[in-house]
């Protein structure tokens, strides 16, 4: 009897302590505000106030793995003093995300605030259909690299680059020198080259379309004739290259080289002299976002150097903005260097494309050509 | 006073099949009535209509003057409101319950107290001779015992009328004969009103106060066993119940107080019939006469009024207590049952005599 009394008194005291300590901490200025001045400080403070009321945030991407997303969430919450906002996150293939959002739009039940996605024609169609919110973040001015490459979305988004390019499993292929897309046609690579399947994927279709600006159709026909494998998913391609199923990828994202390296497989990206395709990874806010304040703050963070550096701890990204050196020397050397896994796009020979002109009809057309070249029938 | 009244009952299955065609009958209080007929004659459907398991298309059913079914008023009381008891051919013992639970089910459904339930269950089991088997799993019992459980279950809650749907036909012959008597005695003892459906004429004879013979959904004849056997109204009844000879003939003159002469060409003879002649029969009209084999006696002795026929034994089978003979007379082979102590041989010429009171003119 006595014991329970003491216990409950103790609990009450503890709770009171928590409240009194927690109270001031909540009221204290968010770290980000200390860095800001004037109108920008007022703007961000207002957004933080709004975000606190919203209390929720949902975002999705085909880019960052769960781990990176969690780390960014944690850093963001600290920086903006929003420890209680509930995050929802989904990492999916771009096709899966598009399927989901198109369904939700049809049902008028869009459940996401921010999308970071490499799907140029879809982003532009979303913009045309009025599903995106125009938002110019103070970070946007740094994205002139992307602007030059026609990757930005006219105030609706700015882009980092998703570069799907050649990658080689050095453990199997050795120190062979690879500088051109034509190197893949060498006899010793017969049946050892893997191509991303454009049929279910806009990403690989656009990769194909981009490369076709520099390479003739006959090049791809030769590649197909040399027994190149066709595989749909990035992760599946990575697994296949890591395990030695194929030696050379052609549509490998930076992230997969990174994962392979961490698992002890020496997989390197190659940036051939003909150039590579950089797909815009737009970070967009939905017009009907339920948590617009949170969305704006998170987009600010995502586009900032801080955000990029945090992401780089877990996932390489070809930045659409110039980046100062990372505090981790290894990341500078392995990722950001000119021959690294994911240098910012100004350091790479990017084949220019006007993404705003890429229509769904174009995608269909190039997809059809891809299927024509790489076939759809049963491989003997 | 009539306990059960069935009036103008019609039941169709689909649009074509007429299962029950305008059937009416009554069952008195404490009476044991059997619906007898071959399969498909509508007897079971009639019973199921009384039980409330089928909804008749037309007609009324009243029990103790309460309306159970009336097509005109759109009334059809569901079976559970009728307070009847029914014993099924398959016994319909619930395999997931013990004997007692089976028997108690109907009593419990009436909301009786636990003590009352126990008492009634014990009584019912005692009545059917299953005391002490209450805790057994019902499906582990023999067929006869299961049928007793089924009976106890139907008796236990004092139903107004007991319905039986061929309850004994799944039992073997010996047991069936014993159960007939036992069941009939029990029903009489308890003074219960019962409607019993069977296709077995022997069963109907033994058990019933009254038999209703049905065919193709219609009642053919209604009467006590004796009358039904001895004065069948038509060839179907005559043939269905027992063994008989059916003769085609032409009506002749009436002989005052004695009967009607019937010319039977196949026997090359005239026979005098004393039964079934209470209606107008035009002289010269075609008709049928039935004579049961056991009423044909051999020899010339007997009353002077008897019909006398001559013939020759064409076949004789010895059955112990009797001979089952075929006797050729004219162009007809008569079936004749002769006492077992007689001396019969095939080919033997015989003289037969038949009492006119055993010759029944049929209505068809």
């Amino acid at each position, binding site marked *: 009897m006595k014991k329970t009394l003491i216990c409950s008194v103790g609990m009450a005291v503890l709770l009171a302590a928590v409240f009194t300590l927690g109270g001031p901490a909540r009221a204290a200025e968010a770290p980000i505000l200390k860095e800001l001045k004037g109108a920008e400080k007022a703007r961000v403070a207002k957004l933080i106030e709004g975000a606190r009321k919203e209390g929720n945030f949902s975002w999705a991407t085909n880019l960052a793995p769960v781990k990176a997303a969690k780390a960014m969430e944690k850093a963001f919450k600290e920086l903006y003093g929003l420890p209680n906002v509930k995050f929802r996150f989904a990492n999916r293939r771009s096709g899966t995300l598009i399927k989901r959002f198109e369904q939700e739009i049809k049902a008028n039940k869009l459940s996401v605030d921010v999308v970071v996605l490499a799907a140029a024609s879809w982003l532009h169609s979303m913009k045309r259909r009025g599903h995106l919110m125009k938002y110019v973040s103070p970070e946007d001015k740094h994205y002139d690299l992307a602007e030059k490459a026609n990757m930005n979305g006219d105030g609706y988004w700015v882009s980092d680059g998703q570069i799907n390019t050649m990658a080689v499993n050095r453990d199997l292929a050795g120190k062979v020198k690879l500088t051109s897309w034509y190197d893949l046609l060498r006899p010793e690579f017969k049946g050892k080259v893997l191509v991303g399947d454009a049929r279910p994927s806009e990403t690989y279709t656009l990769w194909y379309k981009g490369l076709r600006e520099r390479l003739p159709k006959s090049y791809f026909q030769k590649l197909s004739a040399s027994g190149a494998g066709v595989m749909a998913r990035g992760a599946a391609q990575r697994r296949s290259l890591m395990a030695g199923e194929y030696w050379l990828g052609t549509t490998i994202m930076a992230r997969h080289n990174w994962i392979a390296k961490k698992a002890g497989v020496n997989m390197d990206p190659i940036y051939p002299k003909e150039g590579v395709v950089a797909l815009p990874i737009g970070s967009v806010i939905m017009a009907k976002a339920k948590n617009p304040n949170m969305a704006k703050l998170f987009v600010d963070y995502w586009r900032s150097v801080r955000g990029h550096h945090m992401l780089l701890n877990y996932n390489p990204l070809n930045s659409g903005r110039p980046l100062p050196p990372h505090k981790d020397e290894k990341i500078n050397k392995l990722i950001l260097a000119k021959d690294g896994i994911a240098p910012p796009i100004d350091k790479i020979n990017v084949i220019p494309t006007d993404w705003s002109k890429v229509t769904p009809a174009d995608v269909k057309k190039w997809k059809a050509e891809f299927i024509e070249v790489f076939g759809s029938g049963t491989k003997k | 006073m009539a306990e059960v009244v069935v009036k103008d009952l019609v039941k169709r299955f689909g649009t074509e099949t007429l299962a029950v065609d305008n059937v009416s009958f009554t069952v008195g209080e404490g009476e044991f009535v059997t619906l007898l007929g071959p399969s498909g004659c509508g007897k079971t459907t009639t019973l199921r209509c009384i039980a409330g398991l089928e909804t008749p298309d037309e007609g009324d059913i009243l029990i103790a003057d309460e309306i159970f079914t009336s097509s005109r008023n759109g009334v059809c009381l569901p079976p559970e409101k009728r307070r009847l008891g029914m014993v099924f051919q398959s016994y319909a013992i619930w395999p997931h319950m013990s004997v007692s639970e089976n028997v108690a089910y*109907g009593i419990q459904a009436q909301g009786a107290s636990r003590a009352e339930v126990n008492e009634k269950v014990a009584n019912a089991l005692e009545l059917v001779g299953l005391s002490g088997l209450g805790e057994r799993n019902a499906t582990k019992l023999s067929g006869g015992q299961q049928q007793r459980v089924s009976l106890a279950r139907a008796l236990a809650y004092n139903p107004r009328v007991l319905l039986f749907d061929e309850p004994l036909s799944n039992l073997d012959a010996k047991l069936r004969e014993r159960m007939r008597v036992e069941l009939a005695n029990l029903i009489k003892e308890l003074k219960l009103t019962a409607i019993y459906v069977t296709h077995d004429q022997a069963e109907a004879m033994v058990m019933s106060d009254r038999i209703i013979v049905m065919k193709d959904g219609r009642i053919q004849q209604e009467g006590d066993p004796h009358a039904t056997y001895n004065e069948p109204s038509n060839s179907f009844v005559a043939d269905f119940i027992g063994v008989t000879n059916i003769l085609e003939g032409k009506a002749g003159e009436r002989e005052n107080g004695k009967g009607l002469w019937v010319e039977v060409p196949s026997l090359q003879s005239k026979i005098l019939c004393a039964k079934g002649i209470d209606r107008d029969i035009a002289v010269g009209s075609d008709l049928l006469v039935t004579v049961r084999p056991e009423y044909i006696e051999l020899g010339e002795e007997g009353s002077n009024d008897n019909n006398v026929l001559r013939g020759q034994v064409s076949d004789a089978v010895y059955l112990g207590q009797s001979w089952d003979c075929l006797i050729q007379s004219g162009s007809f082979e008569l079936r004749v049952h002769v006492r077992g102590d007689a001396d019969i041989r095939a080919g033997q010429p015989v003289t037969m005599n038949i009492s006119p009171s055993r010759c029944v003119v049929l209505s068809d």
Partner: protein
Amino acid sequence: MSSASKSELEAGGGGAKPAVAASSLAGRFFNSENSLKIGSLGLLTILAILPVSVFIYSAFVTHPEAGKSIFTFTNFTKTFSTSEVLDASVNTLIIALGTSVFSCLVGVSLAWFHARTDMPFRRTLEALTLIPFFLSSFLGAVAWWALAAPRTGILNRWMIDLFGLSAPPFNIYSMTGIVMVMALFYTPYMYLFTIGSLNRMDPALEESARVCGTGVLRTALRVTIPLSTPAMLSGAVIIFVVSMGVFGVPSLLGPIARISTLSTIIYTKMEEYPLDIGGAAALGSVLMVFTALGLYIQRKIIAPRSYVTVTGKGYRPSRVSLGPWKYVALAINCSYVLLAVILPLGALLLASFNRAWLGGFRWSQLSIYNWAYVLFEYEYAVRATKNSLILGLVGGFITVVLCTFLAMVILRGRNKKLSGAVDYLSTLPIGVPGLIMGMAFLITWIKTPLYALPMLLLMMAYMTRYLPYGLRTISSVLQSLSSELEESARICGSSFVSTIRKITVPLLRPGIFAAYLMLFIMFIRELPVSVLLATEDSAPMAVALYILQENEALGVVAAFALVQTALLLLGTIVFRKLGSLEELSV
């Protein structure tokens, strides 16, 4: 009083007497039988007919501009003019045919070994042979990918090392690979389809053949097998129809070999932007024509020809003595268990404990990270596990209740025409492949408030798709129960509802549990309906597995696949214990 009600009867009504009023109220049950049946028809129409009609309708419609629609055949002409679709149609037929032929061969042989021969270790092997029934073919595809990928599969590595082969012997990325995985996982269905008829076959039929001087094998081939041919053919056709709609296996193993099927193309069309609903619906409609045709053949041509080999008596069938051949039978059975159970589960187990999969188990990669990740860390996987449990337990329960209800409506009513209609409607969903059912539900309900309740929508779609299976199980038990059991309860004074509660349901218990178990299994592993219909929040395990397979390392996929396996096997054991089930049925 009594004469009063009698005279009222004769007058044909008049002042409402209490007795009459009460009885006519109660009498309504008999009219309500029809209303129950019409209600069931309505329910089935909403569940099955409506979505499928919307689906078929959308195959004939294009939307040149918003809010405008035109009736047209362009969806068909456009879709079927591409060589991709023609190839895919051929692939679909090859896969379905191969699957049904091979699972038929293996399944029937195994069933015969178990039911009619003296092969040793039958009891143990029976349990092992049936394990794939509880797993999913998709899971098998994941496992076989780890086993037989050309250069990296464990088996290939092992064979190369052991025999010094120059080229890997197996290639799972092939038509053969797809058909093999499917056949391995559909074999138990074939086994279950035939074992019943083999078990119940009157041994005198075989014995008389033996007496006539034919040998064991000849007897089996000339008498036993032909006698169970209708059961076998039915099974083979059903497997053919089901495997035409299968999505998981070809979507995982097909792309590398450039093999697409109708179902993978339908999925792709629903995933690209802009969605090609018309094209997907056109493909789906053609697929449905194939499946419907197959089912028609099964129902109208094969099923009526089954021989009556079943005698009511409880036979203990005598067994055929195989002599030394019994070891051959044993070897065949063991190989099957090895290929369908031990190797796949073993490979998944090994992979799940490696942080990165480098083509074989490496002690340097040993880790329990994958398990921790899918069980606790990765919210999506954890939520999916929860969703699947809800769908399996709650959805399965609701479906079982519906199946029980429909079985009674079909078998116990007096209005045979309506019963027939209910029966017909409720078997219709068999002809609708899961992917199409999912898509049909999606396009039917997406603009309605129902879409806001994604779990409910999923449950409805599952219920509709798998209704025929549950119904079949319960109906077969109900058919064997004499309706007199229920009628006698009614006469004893118990109402319609309480009769169902106290008599019918307890007697149906084994059937209900068997159906619940089967639905639980199907719901836990369900992929094709969910892959298009599930939303982010309602994704069940199979969809999560599919997503994981796209994004994560094999170890994570393997661990999650094993979580699903554990749930399926655990569920099976618990259900069978609770329902004291002895036999399985399909």
